[in-house]
């Protein structure tokens, strides 16, 4: 009887120990905290901010292409999505107003225009068997074709077929990503606003090209012998005069002087997961660069990775819930638009749009001193 009681006590003790030591290991925040901070959808589902024209803000939503009038504060649908024709990507400019592609790719290479019934067909004269792969908010189209019997990809301007960059000799590779720095999706490619284009082969090896618009293939070497950039997916990047920071989908941050870096240095492994083209806005306070990121988890708070560019050997990370990040805790950021330096419009999938202002020297402080945020849908532009 005593033996039975001891056995029973041990079993019960083990069970209770299990409960008390059961670890919420992968959580970004406590379970009840996450629930208590959840925010109800506001009814508008943003996809992409397209641009500002005086008193009008253009953006795409689940409904189609919409414009916001600053004076009345009302939204008007310019082009509606229909069951068969869903707008996949769009670009705003003052000539055509809206250029867009539909979900019928790749059966058509058309870029449709709001103000013209005759669509454009982006192409590169050097290519045959041209296929339109994607279209971007800066008006560039990625096309694939054959040049000298080999697969080539070209980035061309949709309206005049000006070839911005070419990626030749890529048999066996397919397009992985076109990554535009957060806040600059709609800007033309330039030295100040570069992009990174990634390709992947069937074995999962990546090739990355830095485009400004000169094309430079990034080195695949890192300071960790067993770790190659060709095995990692780049989620986003930041480039200024002193640093090229690469953020990978598995939460690693790499540093290089610039696109000619021969070996990138891993600064930190943040143990977070990011989508390709994740929100990662770079703020330069003069001595440090703060990469303000939002991970794949909707309820993960804003996470700032700070790098001292004078000694770029490591990076610190901090979760930010106050100030500019106060309303971005429980949202899925889908697009950001830089209105001015350190001032953004941030569009979310379910929780509306916000305008935020970041104080550069306090970008990694979790206090109201780090900047400010508007309420949902109370953004200003």
């Amino acid at each position, binding site marked *: 009887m005593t033996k039975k009681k001891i056995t029973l006590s041990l079993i019960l003790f083990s069970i209770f120990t299990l409960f008390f030591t*059961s670890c919420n290991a992968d*959580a970004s925040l*406590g*379970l009840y905290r996450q629930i208590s901070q959840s925010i109800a959808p506001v009814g508008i589902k943003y996809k992409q901010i397209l641009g500002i024209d005086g008193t009008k803000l253009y953006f795409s939503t689940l409904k189609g292409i919409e414009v916001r009038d600053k004076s009345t504060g009302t939204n008007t649908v310019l082009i509606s999505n229909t069951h068969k024709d869903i707008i996949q990507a769009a670009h705003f400019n003052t000539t055509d107003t809206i250029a867009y592609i539909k979900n019928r790719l790749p059966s058509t290479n058309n870029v449709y225009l709001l103000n013209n019934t005759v669509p454009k067909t982006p192409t590169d004269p050097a290519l045959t068997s041209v296929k339109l792969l994607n279209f971007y908010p800066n008006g560039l189209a990625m096309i694939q074709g054959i040049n000298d019997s080999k697969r080539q990809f070209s980035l061309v301007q949709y309206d005049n077929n000006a070839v911005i960059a070419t990626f030749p000799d890529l048999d066996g590779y397919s397009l992985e990503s076109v990554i535009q720095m957060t806040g600059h999706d709609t800007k033309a490619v330039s030295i100040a606003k570069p992009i990174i284009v990634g390709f992947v082969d069937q074995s999962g090896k990546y090739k990355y090209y830095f485009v400004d618009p000169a094309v430079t293939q990034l080195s695949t070497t890192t300071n960790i012998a067993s770790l190659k950039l060709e095995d990692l997916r780049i989620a986003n990047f930041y480039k200024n005069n002193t640093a090229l920071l690469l953020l990978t989908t598995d939460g690693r941050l790499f540093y290089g002087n610039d696109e000619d870096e021969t070996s990138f240095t891993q600064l930190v492994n943040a143990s977070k997961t990011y989508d390709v083209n994740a929100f990662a806005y770079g703020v330069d306070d003069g001595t440090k660069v703060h990469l303000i990121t939002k991970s794949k988890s909707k*309820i993960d708070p804003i996470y700032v990775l700070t790098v001292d560019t004078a000694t770029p050997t490591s990076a610190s990370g901090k979760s930010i819930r106050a100030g500019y990040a106060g309303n971005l805790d429980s949202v899925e950021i889908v697009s950001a638009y830089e209105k001015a330096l350190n001032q953004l419009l941030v569009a979310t999938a379910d929780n509306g749009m916000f305008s935020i202002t970041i104080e550069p020297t306090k970008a990694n402080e979790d206090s109201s001193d780090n900047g400010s945020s508007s309420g949902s849908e109370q953004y200003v532009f």
Partner: protein
Amino acid sequence: MNKRLALLLIVLMTLTSVSAAPVYDKGSQLLSFKFGTTVPTFTYFFSDNNFVVGPGQGNTGAKVGGYGAISYQVFNTDKTAVGGEIGYNFNYSAANILFTAVPFYAKYSYFPVQGSWDIPLSVGIGGTYIKYNDAALMTLYTNLEVGVTWYPGTNWGFGLNTGLWLIPEFNYKDDLKQDNAIGGFMPITLSITYRQ
């Protein structure tokens, strides 16, 4: 008002008279199926002494959800029974993300009123697996419950039950300790019980 009081007294007297003769004895068994709803009642965060009450955004953040369970009890005296229950609970958050809990616990019930009408008072203790978004853990579970079950015949009964669940969350990761909390839920369930 007087009519209502009179009616209540008649009901109580009826129930008391029914309870005068116990229908259960040691070895009697109850098998119940429950289904109904759970109301997020409160969440208390220990570190910042924050007590939020009620469902919805700005409160507990969870919406009214659903619960289904099966329980089995055996009488150890003519008025008390021991057994267990396992169930599945869900609530959506304000952000429309699913919270789930799978409680499994030992249950002790006292039947002060029994017969055509049973009024069981129960206490339960055990564990539950809870999950929300990227957070998941096994934790403790306890509850208090009261119910009314009507037996139109000998074996089958139909009941209405409510009570309070308490589900703590203890995190051992340093950066999550500030989120340690206890959650309270109020179940409101209908039940079908077979007794013998």
